[in-house]
């Protein structure tokens, strides 16, 4: 910084420790190019799509090269993708079964992120949701035909309860929600373990999961592709949130609030109320995600029904740009990626570490493409 170079430019990357220019080396006369960054004012949709497509191509190229090195030909990989996702109704069923909870996890995270509340507590909210739903199921609360609805409502209440603590701490005392939501995951997990190894241990097998839910406490089968009502539930939620966030007055005011809180308050937007409502909605969807896995996939509450959804949720919300439609699309591709990974393991016996590496490469490449959408890069000769 003290080089006294008059042409030094402040670039957005400097704060991250990346210098836009290297120190001049006068003894050498080699021409060196350095990047100069400019923030893009707006990006047309076509350019955005092209950028995503390019990032997917780069990821595919790296992944194919890695897989080829471990003996899997690119044509085989392509065949696996086609087989896994689209070859049979059952294959598509597997993808959609995988997609539904991912959509809900992504939505739960996206709503909170839309209101600038960094909810890293999805797993805790899922656990509380499933616990509340299980209370209804285990202690036979309410008449049988209404049981499932009561379980869903209880799950939403559980999720809201769990997120309300960090929300209150943030609103009243300014405590960082990243820390509180994250740490409450562990509290929720230990509560779950306490219940599963204690009072809720399965009376049939003495194993640490709850008793199986009764038939009327399970999300019913759709009668199509072996899917349950989890999928329509996820679709309904996505549709509802899309409308709320993109077309309703609430969505408009929420966007105003998150882009400039002070200005929103000055023009009379109920900032605090809106933010709290969005946070609670995020918790409710989180609780519902837990319910949909317990009542729609496992048919009981197990020890790790929630595992992995926190990071998937953050990732899906981020890549889907916190937009419900984006969340649905990204969740669908995530599901395909997970299943293709499985089948690569199964048929080519590649280790699971390599599969995870490939998945990570795709995600990093798409995430990195954000950079090129945010900044325009100029190359300039260093002096």
């Amino acid at each position: 910084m003290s080089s006294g170079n008059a042409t030094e430019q402040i670039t957005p990357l400097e704060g991250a420790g990346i210098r836009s220019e290297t120190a001049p080396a006068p003894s050498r006369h080699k021409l060196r190019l350095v990047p100069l960054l400019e923030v893009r004012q707006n990006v047309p949709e076509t350019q955005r799509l092209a950028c995503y497509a390019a990032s997917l191509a780069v990821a595919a190229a790296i992944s194919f090269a890695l897989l080829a090195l471990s003996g899997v030909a690119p044509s085989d990989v392509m065949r696996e993708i086609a087989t896994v996702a689209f070859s049979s109704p059952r294959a598509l069923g597997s993808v959609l079964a995988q997609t539904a909870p991912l959509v809900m996890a992504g939505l739960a995270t996206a709503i909170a992120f839309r209101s600038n509340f960094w909810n890293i507590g999805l797993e805790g909210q899922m656990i509380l949701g499933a616990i509340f739903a299980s209370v209804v199921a285990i202690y036979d609360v309410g008449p049988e035909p209404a049981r499932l609805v009561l379980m869903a409502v209880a799950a939403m209440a559980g999720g809201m309860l769990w997120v309300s603590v960090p929300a209150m701490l943030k609103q009243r005392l300014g405590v960082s929600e990243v820390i509180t939501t994250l740490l409450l995951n562990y509290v929720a997990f230990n509560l779950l373990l306490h219940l599963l190894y204690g009072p809720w241990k399965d009376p049939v097998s003495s194993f640490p999961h709850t008793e199986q839910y009764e038939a009327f406490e399970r999300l019913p089968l759709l009668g199509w592709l072996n899917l349950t009502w989890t999928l329509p539930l996820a679709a309904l939620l996505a549709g509802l949130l899309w409308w709320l966030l993109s077309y309703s007055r609430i969505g408009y005011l929420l966007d105003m609030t998150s882009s400039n809180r002070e200005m929103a308050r000055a023009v009379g937007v109920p900032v605090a109320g809106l933010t709290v409502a969005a946070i609670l909605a995020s918790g409710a969807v989180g609780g519902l995600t837990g319910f949909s896995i317990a009542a729609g996939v496992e048919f009981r509450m197990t020890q790790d029904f929630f595992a992995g959804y926190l990071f998937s949720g953050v990732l899906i919300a981020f890549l889907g740009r916190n937009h419900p439609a984006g969340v649905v699309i990204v969740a669908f591709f995530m599901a395909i990626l997970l299943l293709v990974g499985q089948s690569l393991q199964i048929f080519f016996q590649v280790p699971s570490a390599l599969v995870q590496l490939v998945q990570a490469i795709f995600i990093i490449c798409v995430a990195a493409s954000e950079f090129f959408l945010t900044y325009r890069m100029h190359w300039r000769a260093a002096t």
Partner: protein
Amino acid sequence: MKLLQKAAWLTALSALGLTQLTVGASAEFAAKGDPKPAVILFGESNDGGWSQSIDESRKKLESELNLRIPQAEKIPETATAIRPAAELFIDRGANIIIGSAFGYSDTFKELAEQYPETVFINPAGTTNGPNLKSIYGRTYESQYLCGMIAGGLTKSNKIGFVAANPFGLVNWTVNAYLLGARQVNPDAELSVVFTGAWADPVKERAAAEALIEQGVDVLGQHVDTPTVQVVAGEHDVYGTGHHRDLSEFSKATQCSSIWTWDRFLKPEIEKIAAGGFEKAPYGAFLSIKDGLIDVACCGEAVSDELKEKVMAERDAIIAGKHVFAGPLSDREGTVRVKEGEVLSDGDLWSMDWYVDGVSGQ
């Protein structure tokens, strides 16, 4: 408009789905063609413990049966992950699916009903059926023998035990370990710490170090990683392992309670191939005699005399001795097994009590 397109796409797909539903409703199990086993592992195949023990048996079976047995690792205990993995194997000809976790139980039950021509075998499972068998080992036998080693090696009479989660199949290893230790050393006491996780090296290390600080000089374990043995080695105390022979990780390990899945699975697969799959309504609960479990013993610190004692007890167990034979009371003084009786299998699975001399949370 988009909605309409979607609706059309959905109806087209559901028509395809209906044709699929007609398949899959025949009665009794019948083996079809040559056995083609496939293994679905819950953990990583090189986790050093549970999953690796199954994977090593898989490799042995490959050479002994001259078969190629593929595996998939790190398949979590959730239906959305297990089902596609199993179906991918079945689609490509596998007719014996071997699982590895109690969390697979429900999904395996559903799959077994859906695929009546495929045999499902699930270590640590809880569900059974005409073509589904859950298997587990009477690990209290092997842990009892390792407990004898611990009782013989301890100088402080304080033995430590790092366990995963407090329920039946873990509690019986804790109790058996102390019963074994007291067989050779009536003054032995056992402190147990539950980590709340099957494989968490960080918590296992913390638990082992805390126990050593309390004066424990032998460490037993029922967790999935070899961390406890490594910690024992670092502090110059002795240890005994679980799942596999853990002496490869630490010089501290003097005995290990091990799985020998291949000894059970080889004849089982041959039986299935010959059309003789035996149903087991309550699963197969197998002992040292049945060949599912054993001990890897003994390390250099074990005297010949102690080793002879252990081997004599092993012979006695094979001959029918039950580790939980009465009279046996829990630490609150309640009689759990009466004189002349042995603990029933049902009581073993629901064991939620500890014998006198076990302390810890």
